[in-house]
C-alpha cells in the first residue's frame, strides 16, 4: 500500500476553501458601518416623513445626504446578500434549489442596490426634470 503521492498532494483540495473567513469579516465590518448608517437613516426618516416631493428632492441633493444614502444602500444590500446567503446555506440542502436561491439572492441584492444608487444619482445630478 505504498503511496507515491506526497503528503501535501494528498491533503491538497481536501480542507476548507479558506474563503469563510472573508465572509465572516465582511459581515462584521459592514455591520459596524450599518450601525451608524441605520441610526442616521432612522433620524432622517423621521424628518422625511413630513416632507413633500420638492423638500425630499432638496434633501437628497445635499452632499452629505447623497453620500450617506448611497452608502446605506450599498453597504445595506451587501450585508443583506451575506446574511441571506448564510440562511440559505443553513436550511436548503438540495444542491439545485440551493444554487438557484443563492443566485436569486445575489441578483436581488445587486438589482436593488443598482436601482437605489442610480436613482439617488439621478435625483442628485438631475437637471430641470425636477
Amino acid at each position: 500500500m505504498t503511496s507515491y503521492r506526497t503528503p501535501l498532494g494528498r491533503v491538497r483540495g481536501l480542507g476548507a476553501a479558506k474563503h469563510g473567513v472573508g465572509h465572516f469579516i465582511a459581515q462584521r465590518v459592514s455591520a459596524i458601518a450599518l450601525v451608524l448608517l441605520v441610526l442616521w437613516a432612522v433620524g432622517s426618516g423621521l424628518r422625511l416623513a413630513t416632507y413633500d416631493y420638492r423638500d425630499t428632492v432638496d434633501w437628497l441633493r445635499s452632499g452629505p445626504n447623497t453620500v450617506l444614502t448611497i452608502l446605506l444602500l450599498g453597504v445595506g444590500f451587501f450585508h443583506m446578500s451575506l446574511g441571506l446567503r448564510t440562511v440559505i446555506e443553513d436550511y436548503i440542502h438540495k444542491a439545485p434549489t440551493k444554487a438557484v436561491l443563492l443566485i436569486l439572492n445575489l441578483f436581488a441584492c445587486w438589482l436593488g442596490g443598482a436601482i437605489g444608487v442610480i436613482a439617488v444619482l439621478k435625483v442628485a445630478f438631475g437637471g430641470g426634470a425636477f
Partner: protein
Amino acid sequence: MSEAKTGAGLAERPTSPHLQVWRWHVTMWGSILHRVSGIALYGGALILAGWVAALASGPGVFMTYKALLGSIPGKLALFVLTLAIFYHLANGLRHLAWDFGKGFEPRTADMTGAAVIAFAIAASLAVWGLAFVSGALA
C-alpha cells in the same frame, strides 16, 4: 458499517434534535428573532430602493408611493420594520461582543438577550412617539 456508504443508509440515520425538542428560552428567541428581523429588513431595503426610485420618477409616482407608505398597512409595515431595525442592530452588537469572546456566560447571555428585546420595543415606541409629536404621522 458498509451500508453507511450508500445513500439509503445515510438517510436512515437519526438527525440531530432540532427546535421541537428544546424548552423555549430567551436566548433561543434571540437567535431566531435575529434571523427573522434580518429577513424582514431584506424587504425593508427593497422598500428603501423603491422609495428613491419613486423619487427619481417624478412627483406623481413619489406622492403615490408616499401615500402607500402612509396608509394603515404601510404604517404597520414601517412599524414592524422599525422593530426589526432596532432589534437587529442591538442584537448585532451582542454578536460583535460574542466575536470577542465576551458575554457567553448563561446569566449574561440571558440578560443581554432580554435587554435587546426590551430595547427594540422601547426604541421603536420612542421613534414612533417622536413621529407622532412632530406631526410625521399626520
